[in-house]
């Protein structure tokens, strides 16, 4: 890894408000198609109390290096696009304020356990295919959209059973923090397992046995060692580690 000479806003004639505080933003730059090593490039960026890491990266793109590869969309922690490693921990760049990091240097790197496409952008292919494999939809013969059928009524208690797990935005932070994902390239991952539980716990769904069969595999649910790092980094409070333990309850016969 090599560090390239830092660039500051003062060196470039750009119109950005003068600020009293500034940080060094270290961005990991790497194109696996043309390079063999990752580089870190430093930029000095002014910030305010509410400036997010994504804002700072966009300042870099606007003023210093428009080639920085970063994926983002909603900028309000809803789309799950901007996951990256910020000072060593997986987090959403649009949901992490610089002022909260208590550090003069902020290092941004692509998430671990995902192949790098370029710079901070990783491929979600493995996560999405595991998610799809778990049938992330209600499986039921009945339908509420055909004529003469009635609504699927659920009590607040029924909804409570899966609501927390339905908040997943597929950002991949949990998979990135998971130690099993780092070594087991076939592991299904906490994201997909949490989603399996989301549908298994939904009383409208009839696909429980199908899903339990899929996760009951040599690279399925049993490879979770309950490190709990997935739940720690989840920005939506989904708690995949708990979902995994609840799913195990079905497989061990404690839950019906």
């Amino acid at each position, binding site marked *: 890894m090599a560090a390239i000479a830092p660039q500051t806003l003062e060196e470039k004639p750009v119109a950005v408000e003068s600020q009293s505080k500034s940080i060094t933003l270290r961005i990991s730059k790497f194109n696996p198609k043309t390079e063999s090593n990752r580089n870190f490039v430093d930029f000095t960026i002014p910030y305010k109390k509410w400036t997010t890491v994504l804002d700072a990266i966009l300042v870099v793109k606007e003023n210093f290096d428009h080639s920085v590869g970063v994926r983002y969309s909603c900028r309000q922690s809803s789309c799950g696009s901007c996951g990256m490693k910020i000072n060593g921990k997986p987090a959403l760049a649009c949901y992490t304020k610089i002022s909260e990091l208590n550090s003069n240097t902020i290092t941004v790197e692509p998430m671990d356990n995902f192949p790098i496409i370029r710079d901070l952008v990783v491929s979600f292919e493995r996560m999405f295919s595991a998610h799809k494999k778990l049938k992330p939809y209600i499986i039921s013969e009945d339908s509420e959209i055909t004529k003469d059928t009635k609504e699927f009524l659920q009590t607040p208690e029924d909804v409570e059973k899966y609501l927390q797990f339905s908040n997943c935005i597929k950002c991949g932070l949990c998979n990135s923090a998971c130690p099993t994902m780092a070594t087991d390239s076939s592991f299904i991952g906490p994201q997909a397992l949490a989603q399996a539980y989301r549908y298994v716990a939904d009383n409208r769904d009839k696909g429980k046995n199908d899903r339990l069969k899929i996760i009951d595999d040599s690279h399925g649910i049993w490879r979770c060692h309950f490190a709990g790092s997935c739940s720690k980094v989840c920005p939506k409070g989904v708690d995949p580690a708990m979902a995994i333990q609840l799913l195990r309850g079905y497989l*061990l016969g404690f839950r019906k």
Partner: protein
Amino acid sequence: MRESVVMKIHYGTALGAVALVAIHILFRMTQNFADSLEFESVIANYEFLPYALLLEVILVLISIHGFNGLRVILLELRQGRTYEKAVTYGCIAAMAAVIIYGSRTILIAGMGIV
């Protein structure tokens, strides 16, 4: 065999081994440590049938639990159809070898052949 069945066996053997090893330790505490390792004392333990059976069961439980644990670690270390098959059958073979060798020792000592 489904992985959940394998893991039920894994957890069951762990619980069984902890309970039986606790009994084994309690037996050892009836003498002082140095005396319990005396040749005559060790042989006497093997010749006492219930104790020999306890050791045999501990051997089986720990071998199953240990080699399945090893299989899990190796499966997480590398992936691939052939590798995984080799790991699974290799662990079963190693487990059987340890149980056979250990049982042989218990049998020989228990029958007073040493």
